[in-house]
C-alpha cells in the first residue's frame, strides 16, 4: 500500500468514527493539510457537564506515518498551563510509541481520557483571580470561560446598572432601543444568565477561607508573654495612668548620678530585656530612662 493510501485509509476511518466532530482541511494541491478536532471530556452526552475542552490540530508531514505528525493544542478552555504541558508530554510519548502506524485516533482518545479525569476548570476565575474549589458554584459560559457565580452575579448587576444609568443620561431620541445585553468579561461575547439565581451563590471558598483569621498557638504564647510583661511593668510602676497623672505636679531632678546608667545594664527578668530598670516612681521613670540612654552613649 502506498503512503498516500495509508493516510487516506486512516482519515476515512476517522471520519467514520467521529463524523462531524473532526474536520480535514486539504491544501490547494489536494493533499491533506490539517486534521482538526475540538475535544471534550466524555460525560455520557451531558453537554452541560463538560467544563473543559481543547482543539487538537494535527499537521501531517509528507512521509507520515513514518515520521511524527506536528501537534498543536489550541484554544484550551478551563485548563491551566501545567495541564497543557502535561498533555503535550503524553502526546509526544504516544507519537514515539506509534511511529510508523496511524496515531490520530490514539491521540484523540488520549486527550479525551485526560480531559475526563480533570473535568473541573483548573484555571482561575478572571474576576477575583482565585481558583475553583470543590463546592464552589460556578458558571461555564457559552464561550467556555469560567466564573464563580458570586463574581459573575456582581459583574452582571453592576454592568446592568451602569447601562441603565447611561441610558437615563441620554435624551430620549438617543437612547438605545435594544435591551441590556450581558457580555462575557473575558471575550465580550454575549452571555445569557439568570442573575437572580447567580446572586444566591456564596462567595468563593478560597476567597472566603483566606479571610479567616485564626489565633494560632504561637500567637497565644506571644499574647501570654506580653501579658506577663505588662503585669511586671505595672507592678513596678512602669505603666502610667494618664488621667491620674494629669493632676499631679511634674518635678524633674537633674542629679548627675552615674548609678542611673549602671542600673540600665541589669536586665532584670529575661522578659524585660529591653525595658528600663524597675523604679518605684512612675514619674521618675520617664525622666531617668531618657537620661540613662544619653549617658550610656557617651
Amino acid at each position, binding site marked *: 500500500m502506498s503512503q498516500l493510501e495509508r493516510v487516506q485509509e486512516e482519515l476515512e476511518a476517522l471520519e467514520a468514527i467521529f463524523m462531524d466532530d473532526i474536520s480535514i482541511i486539504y491544501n490547494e494541491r489536494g493533499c491533506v493539510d490539517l486534521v482538526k478536532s475540538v475535544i471534550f471530556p466524555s460525560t455520557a452526552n451531558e453537554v452541560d457537564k463538560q467544563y473543559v475542552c481543547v482543539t487538537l490540530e494535527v499537521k501531517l508531514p509528507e512521509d507520515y506515518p513514518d515520521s511524527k505528525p506536528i501537534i498543536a493544542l489550541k484554544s484550551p478552555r478551563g485548563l491551566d498551563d501545567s495541564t497543557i504541558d502535561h498533555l503535550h508530554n503524553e502526546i509526544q510519548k504516544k507519537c514515539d510509541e506509534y511511529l510508523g502506524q496511524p496515531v490520530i485516533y490514539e491521540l484523540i482518545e488520549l486527550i479525551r481520557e485526560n480531559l475526563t479525569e480533570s473535568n473541573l476548570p483548573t484555571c482561575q476565575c478572571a474576576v477575583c*483571580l482565585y481558583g475553583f474549589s470543590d463546592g464552589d458554584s460556578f458558571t461555564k459560559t457559552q464561550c467556555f470561560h469560567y466564573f464563580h457565580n458570586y463574581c459573575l452575579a*456582581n*459583574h452582571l448587576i453592576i454592568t446592568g446598572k451602569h447601562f441603565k444609568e447611561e441610558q437615563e443620561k441620554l435624551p430620549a431620541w438617543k437612547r438605545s432601543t435594544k435591551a441590556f445585553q450581558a457580555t462575557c*468579561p473575558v471575550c465580550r461575547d454575549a452571555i445569557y444568565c439568570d442573575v437572580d439565581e447567580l446572586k444566591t451563590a456564596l*462567595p468563593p471558598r478560597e476567597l472566603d477561607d483566606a479571610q479567616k483569621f485564626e489565633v494560632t498557638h504561637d500567637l497565644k504564647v506571644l499574647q501570654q508573654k506580653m501579658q506577663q510583661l505588662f503585669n511586671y511593668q505595672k507592678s513596678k510602676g512602669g505603666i502610667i495612668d494618664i488621667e491620674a497623672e494629669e493632676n499631679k505636679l511634674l518635678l524633674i531632678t537633674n542629679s548627675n548620678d552615674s548609678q542611673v546608667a549602671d542600673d540600665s545594664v541589669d536586665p532584670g527578668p529575661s522578659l524585660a530585656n529591653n525595658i528600663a530598670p524597675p523604679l518605684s516612681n512612675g514619674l521618675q521613670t520617664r525622666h531617668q530612662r531618657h537620661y540613662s540612654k544619653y549617658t550610656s552613649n557617651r
Partner: protein
Amino acid sequence: MTDMSPSERRLQKELMSLIKDPPPGVSVDAEQAEQNLLQWTIHMEGALGTLYEGEQFQLQFKFSNKYPFDSPEVTFVGSNIPIHPHVYSNGHICLSILTDDWSPALSVQSVCLSIVSMLSSCKDKQRPPDNTFYVKTCSKNPKKTKWWYHDDSV
C-alpha cells in the same frame, strides 16, 4: 491581620504578581501600594524602537471599593507627561478600556500593556487637538469625562 474585602484581596493578588513578574519596562512602587492598596504609582519606560524610547513616565492608579467591577482611575502624573494624540497635558488618557470598555477580567497589568502599546504605535508626537480647551474645563477625575472614542489608529 484585618478582614479584607474582595476588592482588596484581588488588589493584593495583582500587586504580588506585578512585583514578581512585571511586563517589560513596568515597575510598581511596592512600598506605597502596600501602605495604601487603593492608590498605586507605576513607573513606565517608553518601549525600545518607538518615539518614546528612553523616556520615563509615571502612571497613577486609583481604585474604588467596587474594583474590579468598576474601572480604575488612571492618569499620567509627574514631570513627564507623554506627548501623544490621546494624552492630555494634565495626564488624562483617552482610552476606551478605562471607561466604556472596561471589563473585570482586565487588570493593572493589562491596562499598563495597553498604554505601552498605545504609545508605541504613535507616529507623530502631538497633543490632542482640543488639549487647551479640555484641560481648562475638565473635571479632575478623567472618569467623569464623556469620552468619544473614534480613532483606532494610534
